[in-house]
């Protein structure tokens, strides 16, 4: 691999290939972070497949699918925003990142309604109702909350990153020459989408 220009580069900007590699490695760590939860899921699904099926029926497949659509579209919009900034179309880039942010917000709203609906039925980790469920169902809900909870945290972090980009595109510090921040935030956002792509069938579509 050729040497980077960073050797003689004393500017504020990190070379984009360097920055991108750094972000990819960070994404790998996120994959393994969620990976631990997926492993626990795999073990208990194998052990309690009936219970998992019963418990999954409590989840609203329509909302889950809607959330999937929101995230997939938002992945497209953020990917398009990179194209836009590469083509020096600042306004379009700004608009697309904004749309991404709105879709993220809609996802979070759905998540809020889903969770509060379950809380109304006293279906949360540590509740008496949960303790009286068959063991596999209890574990399913534990996994459901922990996995979607950790995921929602990452959606939230992604929303912060997107907001920072909106400000920077507006100010012009993210532009056609220097858009590493947008590109890396896009990569992070796609990761959030990737994790959901696995979560959705595993939690909502169990037959």
């Amino acid at each position, binding site marked *: *691999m050729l040497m980077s220009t960073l050797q003689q580069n004393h500017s504020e900007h990190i070379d*984009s290939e360097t920055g991108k*590699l750094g972000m*990819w490695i960070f994404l*790998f760590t996120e*994959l*393994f972070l969620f*990976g631990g939860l*997926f*492993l626990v899921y*795999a*073990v208990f*699904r*194998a*052990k309690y497949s009936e219970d998992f099926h019963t418990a999954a029926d409590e989840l609203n*497949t329509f909302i889950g*699918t809607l959330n*999937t*659509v929101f995230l*997939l*579209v938002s*992945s*497209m919009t*953020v*990917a*398009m925003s*990179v*194209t836009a900034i*590469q*083509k020096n179309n600042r306004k379009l880039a700004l608009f697309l990142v904004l749309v991404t942010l709105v879709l993220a917000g809609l996802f979070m709203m759905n998540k809020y309604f889903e969770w509060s609906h379950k809380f109304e039925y006293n279906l949360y980790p540590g509740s008496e109702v949960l303790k009286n469920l068959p063991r596999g169902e209890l574990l399913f809900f534990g996994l459901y909350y922990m996995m979607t909870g950790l995921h929602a945290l990452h959606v939230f972090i992604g929303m912060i990153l997107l907001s920072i980009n909106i400000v920077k595109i507006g100010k012009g510090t993210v532009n*056609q*020459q*220097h858009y590493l921040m947008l590109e890396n935030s*896009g*990569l992070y956002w*796609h990761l959030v*989408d*990737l994790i959901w*792509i*696995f979560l*959705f*069938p*595993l939690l909502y*579509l*169990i*037959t």
Partner: protein
Amino acid sequence: MKNEGVHISSYSSHGIVLTVLLALTTLSVMVTDWHLGAFSVSVALLIASIKVSTVITYFMHVKFESLFLKLLIAGVFVIYALVIIITFIDYFLR
């Protein structure tokens, strides 16, 4: 300068990718109504894997990145898969 030789994905390619992803999502929801028994997990994971690969290849631009990055991403998934498989050497054979 930075943008020389950098591939720029077109808006329409992103649109096509989204269409594919939405179609696959529809498929995976429909599949839950088919009674596949033990295969249902595998089919669900297979469709999810195709979706994930699509997002990585196109939205995350990996198709146009270096061979090194492609191998790296594949390698990371392989290592993770091995961890799951090896853990199940315990669980399946107890």
